[in-house]
């Protein structure tokens, strides 16, 4: 079985700071990580390889430094890494990104064998759109399963797959066919610790690097800003509320006094709440 997993290198959001005056992101010194949601997909891919044999190819699109994320993925045990990098991809929105990645997946198929499953994370932590996975599926004509909590079974020979998929009020059990694209729900597994062998192999590995042309892209108008129907017109910091919080005075008060005072303030501001709480609360 050949599994392709799409990952993204993202800034570690816990360490992003916004410049207080210019309202721009201060990127300097912010470490990058593999998008945390992608790790659930990577682990699932590695598990499937363990159960069914085959290879796992990791793919990312990004600047040359995205190689670090691919090398990290290799340390977890992926077999091969492909970096799609080209200046023409700059400014890609989700539609242009899904175009470029889908072309690269076709090229991966031609070069290393057609994938049975393409994985992606649920969404990224920097864009949060959850659109690129479905976009790739649509462009490649793959069946699509998003928010998958569990892959129940795969029959590689019969080309069958059954999955449990998260829906708003419960879990859907679906039976479908390979090849397909799956985005994994968070918390469904835990990324393994890579072996020492994998770490050494990752350090030595040649990462496959493709430009747009090398990935088989002919129409550059579908890439980057030109291929993006959406345009970001303005980036700004949210306006703050005019007033700050009214502070409850702490002087000479016990925690119990404070609690009583807070409750009194809450009910003064929201008188209806006291009545509702007396009936609904306190079970």
């Amino acid at each position, binding site marked *: 079985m050949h599994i392709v997993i799409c990952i993204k290198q993202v800034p570690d959001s816990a360490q992003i700071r916004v410049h207080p005056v210019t309202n721009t992101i201060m990127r300097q010194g912010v470490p990058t990580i593999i998008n945390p949601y992608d790790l659930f997909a990577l682990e699932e891919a590695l598990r499937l390889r363990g159960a069914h044999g085959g290879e796992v190819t990791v793919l990312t699109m990004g600047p040359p430094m995205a190689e670090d994320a691919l090398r990290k993925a290799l340390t977890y045990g992926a077999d091969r890494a492909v970096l799609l990098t080209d200046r023409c991809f700059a400014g890609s929105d989700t539609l242009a990104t899904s175009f470029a990645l889908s072309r690269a997946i076709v090229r991966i198929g031609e070069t290393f064998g057609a994938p049975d499953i393409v994985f992606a994370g649920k969404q990224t932590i920097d864009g949060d759109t959850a659109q690129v996975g479905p976009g790739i599926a649509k462009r490649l004509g793959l069946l699509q399963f998003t928010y998958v909590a569990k892959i129940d079974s795969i029959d590689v020979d019969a080309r069958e797959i059954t999955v449990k998929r998260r829906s708003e009020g419960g879990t859907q059990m679906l039976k479908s066919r390979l090849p397909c694209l799956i985005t994994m729900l968070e918390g469904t597994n835990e990324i393994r610790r890579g072996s020492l062998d994998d770490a050494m192999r990752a350090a030595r590995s040649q990462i496959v690097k493709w430009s747009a042309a090398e990935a088989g892209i002919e129409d550059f108008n579908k890439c980057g800003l030109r291929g993006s129907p959406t345009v970001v017109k303005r980036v700004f910091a949210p306006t703050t509320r005019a007033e700050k919080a009214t502070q*409850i005075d702490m002087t000479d008060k016990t925690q119990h006094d404070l609690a009583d005072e807070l409750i009194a303030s809450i009910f003064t501001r929201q008188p209806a709440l006291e009545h509702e709480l007396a009936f609904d609360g306190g079970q």
Partner: protein
Amino acid sequence: MSNANREAPPSAGRAGIKRELPEHFRDYRHVWVFIELERGEVHPVSFELLGEGRKLADKLGIQLAGIVLGPPGEATQHAVAEAFAYGADLVYLVEAPLLADYRNEPFTKAMTDLVNTHKPEILLLGATTLGRDLAGSVATTLLTGLTADCTELDVDVDGSLAATRPTFGGSLLCTIYTLNYRPQMATVRPRVMAMPPRTAKPVGRVVRHKLSMTEEEIITKVLGFNLDRQSAKANLAYADIVVAGGLGLGSAENLQLVKNLARAIGAEYGCSRPLVQKGWMPADRQVGQTGKTIRPKLYIAAGISGAIQHRVGVEGADLIVAINTDPNAPIFEFAHLGIVTDAIRFLPALTEAFTRRLSPHSHDKLAS
């Protein structure tokens, strides 16, 4: 019904420059809202979107349509009636047994056929598991722009949809346009927009559309559906009172203090993003723009510093109470009531005080 026109290469241009809308998109009119019907129930986000859609349609002087995709039967008819009650001028309806359960293939087909036939200018969907699954497929099929998780929708002077959403993990906001393509698509998370009033409006014009697909053409089959247990279902987004804990609680064990207070006052409990990342609470309890957006009557934030993405997700609360040891914590910038104290010590006192005050035997005290 063809996508042929859409494949025409876009005119090259840079961000921020308004270009001429191609000829074949000029007759795209009206605002559409996808009415999310799953297993007999309409997701409330659909009504919230009708409220926003109404405003956009009125500004543009065009109509608001609800899109109902579902199996023949009462639930689907009810969804149609509700779409009118929450402000739709008309409803496009695709009724087919194949649409009984959500599956990407028939829903994408139904929606893209509707768009190609009736040509909306704006298409809004809820950013739910269903809405996001569908929106990504539809936008890619139509090769148009899709802006996810919008927190504000407006119309520009030249009539373009200005879709504002958080970016960089919620640290900043950005306004995004889909200039040269139609429809302009956007998703919005539940509870981000206010629920509009329901009116006793009669069912208006319903335009029916046939689904040109058979069960044999759909590869994916539904084997079953497990409803979530009611007790396991965190109804954070729609709760009237929410108590949430943050890193200031110091340990996963101390989250019990948050749960105790929540139980005492009949609230839902949640946490800030770092706690989910630490694995202290499951992701469906995360309060904030990147988790659940909430609009409760009362929100108590204990040991939460108040990062922008958190703020964007709780600002709709009527009353925000913040408890934090750091007097300079950003949460005090947007909370209404603040206490600079250690939540680990204060929460038990608050729980006890609430319990005392709300117990049936405390009426004498209340009256005094």
